[in-house]
């Protein structure tokens, strides 16, 4: 790392998609990538699907100084994965991180898939000043073409056979997220229950949510996460919004949904990045909404002419 004026100079993030076909192709690019990280003294992490991980591990062996991580355990919840990468970057600082980062694209429904695509885009924003290098393998032989197409929109550079090329299709994270949000629908079923939040004491609201979570069959941990998330959003609505403040709650298949609404206008209006950027500490602005995103499966914000609405999904 070059040092000028006594301060370490941070490179911008290098975030590349690697579109490959077959194991030989996979190894031909990922092996030199990891080796270059080791040679540069970077903190080298390999997160990949099991077959790819063990093939790489066979090449390098134990004691190479690479941290091996099974993608199946690492990619479970997009915002928590951002949190975990952030923790890696912080733990290794000032050493920059060199990460092979192969997401998991199986086992998700349509909306979860969209959130993982958004996650790939968010990496560009969250880690833009981290100095990290990330190579994200996309298996063109088994992944749906749409997933590979999206990778060209969420990575500024793409590697296939030759040298890395700038991706013509790349879209910056704020615009990309806004496009993800364009297809959201905010309908509410007629039989959604409504709970009016009349005063600043949120105890009754918490008890009500805990009871409904139990009825829905949520396990203890997600139930407590939901109660904590609802409390946070409602407290914000009481503090910053305009009455009436209230919550709708309903079930949608395996999901339990809570939507907290008030009559206020959220200004400055939230954008597609709001609550997705990890705060440095709990004292920083944005800690509340970031943490709400960690606690539940999905958070959707709507700041409209008719008020501010925050919808939480959990299962």
């Amino acid at each position, binding site marked *: 790392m070059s040092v000028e004026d006594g301060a370490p100079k941070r490179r911008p993030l290098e975030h590349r998609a690697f579109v490959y076909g077959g194991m030989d192709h996979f190894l031909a690019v990922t092996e030199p990538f990891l080796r270059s990280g080791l040679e540069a003294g970077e903190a080298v992490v390999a997160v990949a699907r099991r077959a790819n991980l063990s093939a790489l591990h066979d090449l390098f062996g134990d004691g190479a100084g690479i941290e091996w991580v099974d993608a199946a355990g690492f990619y479970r919840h997009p915002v928590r994965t951002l*949190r975990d990468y952030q*923790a890696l970057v912080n733990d290794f600082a000032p050493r920059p991180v060199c990460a092979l980062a192969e997401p998991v694209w199986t086992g998700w429904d349509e909306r979860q898939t969209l959130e993982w695509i958004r996650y790939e885009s968010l990496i560009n924003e969250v880690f833009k000043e981290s100095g990290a290098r990330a190579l994200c393998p996309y298996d063109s032989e088994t992944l749906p073409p749409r997933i590979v197409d999206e990778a060209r929109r969420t990575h500024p550079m793409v590697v296939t056979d030759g040298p890395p090329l700038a991706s013509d299709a790349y879209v910056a994270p704020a615009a990309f997220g806004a496009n993800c949000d364009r297809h959201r629908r905010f309908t509410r079923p007629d039989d959604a229950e409504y709970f009016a939040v009349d005063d600043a004491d949120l*105890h009754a609201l918490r008890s009500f949510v805990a009871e409904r979570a139990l009825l829905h069959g949520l396990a203890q941990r997600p139930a*407590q*996460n939901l109660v*904590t998330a609802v409390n946070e959003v409602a407290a914000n609505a009481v503090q910053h919004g305009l009455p009436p403040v209230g919550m709708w709650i309903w079930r949608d298949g395996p999901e339990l949904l809570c939507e907290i609404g008030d009559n206020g206008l959220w200004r400055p209006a939230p954008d597609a990045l709001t609550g997705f950027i990890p705060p440095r*500490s709990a*004292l920083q602005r944005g*800690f509340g909404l970031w*943490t709400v995103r960690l606690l539940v499966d999905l958070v959707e914000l709507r700041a409209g002419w008719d008020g501010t609405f925050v919808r939480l999904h959990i299962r």
Partner: protein
Amino acid sequence: MEPLRIVRTDEPAGLALIGELDAARHAVLARALETALAELPPDREFHLDLGGLDFIDLGGIALLGDAAWSRACGAPVVLDRTPPDMRAVLETVGWGTLPGLCFGDPA
């Protein structure tokens, strides 16, 4: 709802929190933390007994994080007897945004 009670403890030095902690009690807790921390040498651990706490909101967690942060390079703020539900929430938040805070005696 059982309003938050805050009790000074001597061995180990710190506070015990009992009841529910939400935005209505942030100011009271912030003052109690400040007073108790001011009297404790920076090299001594500060313990919070959460065994009697029924709920903590994110603002409350941030206050505990603030207390740990305010000790800078001093000894950590230790959370004792953290109920399992609350432990799960704290683990989801992650220690990355709560430097200087850690679990002590289990529940």
